[in-house]
């Protein structure tokens, strides 16, 4: 009951935040939620035991798909977010059939390589993507109103959190945790391993694509180097690790902690803040092996 009232309280707070917060905070909160969704999607794939480094790649695909849809095909901005998600999902379906036969390091490296391939394609298909110069969005979503964009991102975040909980509470959890623990046993219990891996790969890629599409709408600009930037992989991974993997609250806590820490550090020391940021990540991984949320959970349980 206490948990439920906390969740309701948090949602109400998040919904009404733009009515009292200043522009700066609204902007920071929006960006933290985008990264939070990426962190959750990365963790959802990790729950199957597969370490994906393709997060930035599908993020970029979604961003490009959304901008091209609006600029060249006159799709409405809100619709373009779905296009970003669907495009990323379709690419994941096509590639997943091949890369999901790989495991561990080989899967990780291949997904990382895919990101570079997407970036090279974006740079060279200049008719469609604007090449190295990038592409500008002519009609910003909601005429660039930050509050409306905030609410859009909040709704997206709620959908992603709900999806992550579906992964935790239904038979999907039993399938993917079994696959992570022992594929031989999973098979012997009747689990179609490939089907589940492909399903999770598609869903998480769609989330990453949608996140990219929203990001592109928010900044009205895509460009190969920055849209496929490794930030969209490394920050979410760090957030999930700091918060705690294999859970919904973990990546959320991690995104909030690291998101605000990086903003605060930026103000405190404009140049060296990434060093401190890196040290925070290293220290949590060494001393809080299960992340902030995981450690708190262990403390509560052992009492």
């Amino acid at each position, binding site marked *: 009951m206490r948990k439920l009232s906390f969740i309701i309280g948090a949602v109400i707070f998040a919904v009404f935040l733009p009515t009292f917060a200043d522009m700066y905070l609204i902007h920071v909160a929006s960006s933290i939620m985008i990264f939070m969704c990426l962190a959750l999607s990365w963790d959802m794939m990790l729950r199957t035991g597969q370490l994906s480094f393709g997060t930035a790649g599908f993020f970029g695909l979604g961003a490009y798909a959304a901008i091209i849809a609006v600029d060249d095909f006159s799709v409405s901005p809100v619709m373009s977010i779905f296009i970003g998600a669907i495009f990323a999902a379709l690419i994941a379906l096509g590639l997943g059939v091949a890369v999901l036969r790989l495991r561990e390091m080989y899967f990780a490296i291949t997904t990382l390589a895919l990101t570079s391939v997407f970036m090279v394609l974006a740079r060279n298909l200049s008719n469609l993507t604007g090449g190295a110069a990038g592409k500008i969005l002519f009609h910003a979503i909601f005429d660039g109103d930050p509050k409306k964009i905030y609410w859009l991102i909040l709704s997206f975040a709620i959908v992603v959190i709900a999806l992550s909980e579906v992964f935790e509470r239904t*038979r999907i959890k039993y399938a993917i*945790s*079994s696959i992570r623990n022992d594929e031989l*046993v999973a098979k*012997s*219990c009747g689990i*179609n391993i490939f089907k589940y891996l492909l399903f999770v790969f598609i869903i998480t890629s769609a989330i990453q694509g949608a996140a990219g599409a929203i990001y592109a709408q928010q900044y009205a600009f895509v460009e190969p180097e920055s849209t496929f930037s490794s930030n969209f992989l490394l920050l979410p991974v760090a957030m999930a690790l700091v918060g705690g993997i294999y859970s919904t609250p973990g990546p959320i806590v991690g995104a909030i902690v690291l998101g605000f820490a990086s903003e605060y550090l930026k103000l405190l020391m404009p140049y060296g803040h990434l060093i401190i940021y890196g040290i925070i990540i290293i220290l949590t991984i060494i001393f809080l092996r299960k992340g902030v949320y995981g450690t708190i959970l262990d403390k509560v349980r052992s009492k």
Partner: protein
Amino acid sequence: MKILRLENLTKNFGGLIAVNNVNIELQEGEILGIIGPNGAGKTTLTNLVAGTLEVSSGKIFFQDSDITNLPAHLRVRIGISRTFQTVRPLKDFTALENVVVGALFAKGESLSQARESAYKVCRFLKLERVDSYPDKLTVFELKKLEIARAIVCNPKVLFLDEVMAGLNFEEMKQMIQIVKSLKDEGMTICVIEHVMSVISELTDRVVVLDRGEVIAEGPYLEVSKNKRVIAAYLGEED
């Protein structure tokens, strides 16, 4: 009536022939023992039947349909279950949840049905600490967990790969009762075992494997006097 038939089954790993041209028939309702010295190919045979290894040549028939190329996760759904020689519990799940996995995916039950079936199976096996994680369970409990996860799938044929290993005398007696009661439930059982007293008490018939080949077949008492079998276990005299 025969329920499972292995026809000229062969498996080689590179140059090593683990299972060589094996023909075995399993009659419905019987307990068949598979014995043989270490490295005879007993576990490989289990893996071939369960579908976790691909056969090199030969065929496997289950209830007269050819399942040689059927993927492992579908074999358990049509009724072939197995336990693992070294216990393989899913460590992030409690004992009960381990069993739930089988009911969910092999039988396609809903979450609440699966939990119900899992409880029932655990009660049947007298596996009491169902909410414990595997690292807190004893060897005997882990062996029961292996069996629970296999039988919750409602198998017609059950392969038990050395379920007695590591058990003390008292536990072994209980395990023998469990296997007998599974037979009474109507399962056809294939016991792979090193403990001969267990084999003699449980099985209707045994097959002896040596270096991947069937060297003898028949009731245990008969087979245990077979010269080739004795030679395989003890080594030949020059």
